[in-house]
């Protein structure tokens, strides 16, 4: 469960990039839709604890992200749109870092790398990888441990067919296990049938639409919502 209260965030300290008076994200799959630059990624980054809101609070499973930093993040996995990894760490370094912080085992690291097809290049530093491989490495970090809150920003972008299937199946499994999965995507179709709620972001403001309001043809409704936000 993620809760945002009276949240305001601005990149330049003048124009608000996101204003959220109140938002609760319940367990299940929540899709974030909106036009380019509407504030989707900003919402996800604030929810993941990457950016601290200028005002208001964000809590994950009842723990404040900025007052109870470690506990609030202990079961949170974030996969950003851009693979923001320091270029000088090896893939294995990145995964071990996450594993040690999240309490996953050494074997989990090897398994995660194997699942995303990066085991053979575990020694390579981030700068030696292609964009797709970097994104795979970041997704592999989400596979570590048993994250109860998963935040994915455009998870299918630049991924090949095999990885798309893996990500879609894993997301469904997380949802089925009762985790809170939040994902922003323009690729609506693979997730349309599993959506439990939709957050529409428009010019930094959010609106929640329940799955029951989507009607019979979910994909069409989602496409309409996405189009209405632009």
């Amino acid at each position, binding site marked *: 469960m993620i809760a945002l209260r009276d949240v305001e965030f601005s990149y330049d300290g003048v124009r608000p990039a996101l204003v959220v008076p109140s938002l609760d994200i319940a367990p299940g799959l929540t899709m974030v839709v909106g036009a380019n630059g509407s504030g989707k990624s900003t919402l996800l980054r604030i929810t993941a*604890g*990457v*950016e601290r809101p200028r005002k208001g609070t964000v809590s994950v499973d009842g723990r404040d992200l900025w007052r109870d930093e470690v506990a609030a*993040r202990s079961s*949170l996995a*974030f996969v*950003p749109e851009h693979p923001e990894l320091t*270029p*000088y760490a090896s893939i294995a370094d990145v995964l071990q870092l996450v594993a040690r912080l999240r309490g996953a085992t050494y074997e989990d690291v090897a398994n995660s790398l194997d699942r995303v097809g990066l085991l053979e290049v*575990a020694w390579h530093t981030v700068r030696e990888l292609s964009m797709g491989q970097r994104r795979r490495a970041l997704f592999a970090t989400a596979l570590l441990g048993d994250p109860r809150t998963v935040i994915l920003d455009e998870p299918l972008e630049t991924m090949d067919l095999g990885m798309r299937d893996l990500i879609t199946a894993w997301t469904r499994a997380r949802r089925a296990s009762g985790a809170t999965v939040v994902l922003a995507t323009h690729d609506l179709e693979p997730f349309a049938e599993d959506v439990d709620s939709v957050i529409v972001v428009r010019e930094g403001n959010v609106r929640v639409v329940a799955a029951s309001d989507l009607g019979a043809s979910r994909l069409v409704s989602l496409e309409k919502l996405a189009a209405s936000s632009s």
Partner: protein
Amino acid sequence: MTSVAVEPEITPRDRFVALTKFHWAAGARVALRANAMVLGTVIFVFGSAPEALATLRNFLLGIVGVGNRSGPRMLLAAIAAGFAWTAVRRVLLGANGWMRALPIGGRAAWRAGVAALCMAQIAVASFIPLCVLMAGLVYRRPVDWARVASLFLMIPAVAATVLPSRRIYTRAIAAIALAMTIIGSWWTLLGCVAFLLFADALSPSIGSVRRANAGRSAMPRRSSPTAIWMRASWRAMRFEGIAAASALPIILGSYAHFIARNNPGIESSTVATVTRVTGALAVAAFTAALANTLLRTRQPWPWARSLPWSCARRVTIDAFVLGIPMILIPLGLWHVSGTSALIVAGLLPLGAASGAAALRLANRRQTGAAGETTAVMLVAGAAIVVSPWFALVSLAATPFVLQLGAHRERDEIATRWSELHHDASGDPGWLGRA
């Protein structure tokens, strides 16, 4: 009859000239500016010597005068290597990438690289005739022409030694040629020419070769998050970055040695004070330079903020990243005055913490992390000069500075940091932007 336009034939020489001109325009010319730092350091060190003119005379005569002293020539070779070394990264930008698609052979590319690095040593080349004139006209000593001629070969030998090659023995052969130029007889001169030609004949090409991790398992050893973060930070700073940051502190620290060694009757209390002054200045300079090196080279890694570790922990790790290389300062001062070196060591935790804290606001400042760090450390340094007991105050203040850093880390907007500064990675000196 129709006339057919004949394309002019492009000879290997044309290609070499074109590439050399490109290296000059794109890299070596810019590198000359960076060489000012090497030149400045050399002038400063010579000027700081107790008998500056006598030192200069010995140096010049050791380079071109009759005799078999090789110390000054080794020093000149090291200075030349410093010039070439600072130029390598600029000259080779793209040499391992798009330039490999150009219609030019590996040997020509290597020769052009050597030529560019020779140009970067222009200060050494112009110093040689000056040495000859000074030795003959001012000091009125005979000149050894074999040693003079060898000096001109020292420049390409240094360039070939410093230039990364895909064949490791190319540099080894060039290093032998360089050693022969340092000896400086007619025979070694011939040997040097032979070795340089040999290096050229092996058709080397520019660039470093990635060694296969044959002996390694797919997964590396287990590391703690702290070790991983520190390793990635030091890897980003590179050895060269840390070494460059240590240049000014070494000069400042060397004053304690100069003063203690060249004044036999000096009182121990004066030596202790001098050690504290130079040590405090060295700590301030080193902390500031290291913090800016880390700031410039390591991406802020915003994603890591979503992991279950606290802001305070990340700041503390950065303090260790900065603080561990600084241990060299009290170690270097130890044999001048052990007690004062310990007092200077007391400044290190505060220096490391203030550097880590300053990193968190650095993207909004033209001085990066250096300005704030220098200011804090100069105040702390002045305090321990007045009274060594202030070292304890400095230690006690460290947790508060770390707390300040953690507070800043929480409030930092990480998302746009990289766009504003690190995306211009082709310009390694964004801190100097107007």
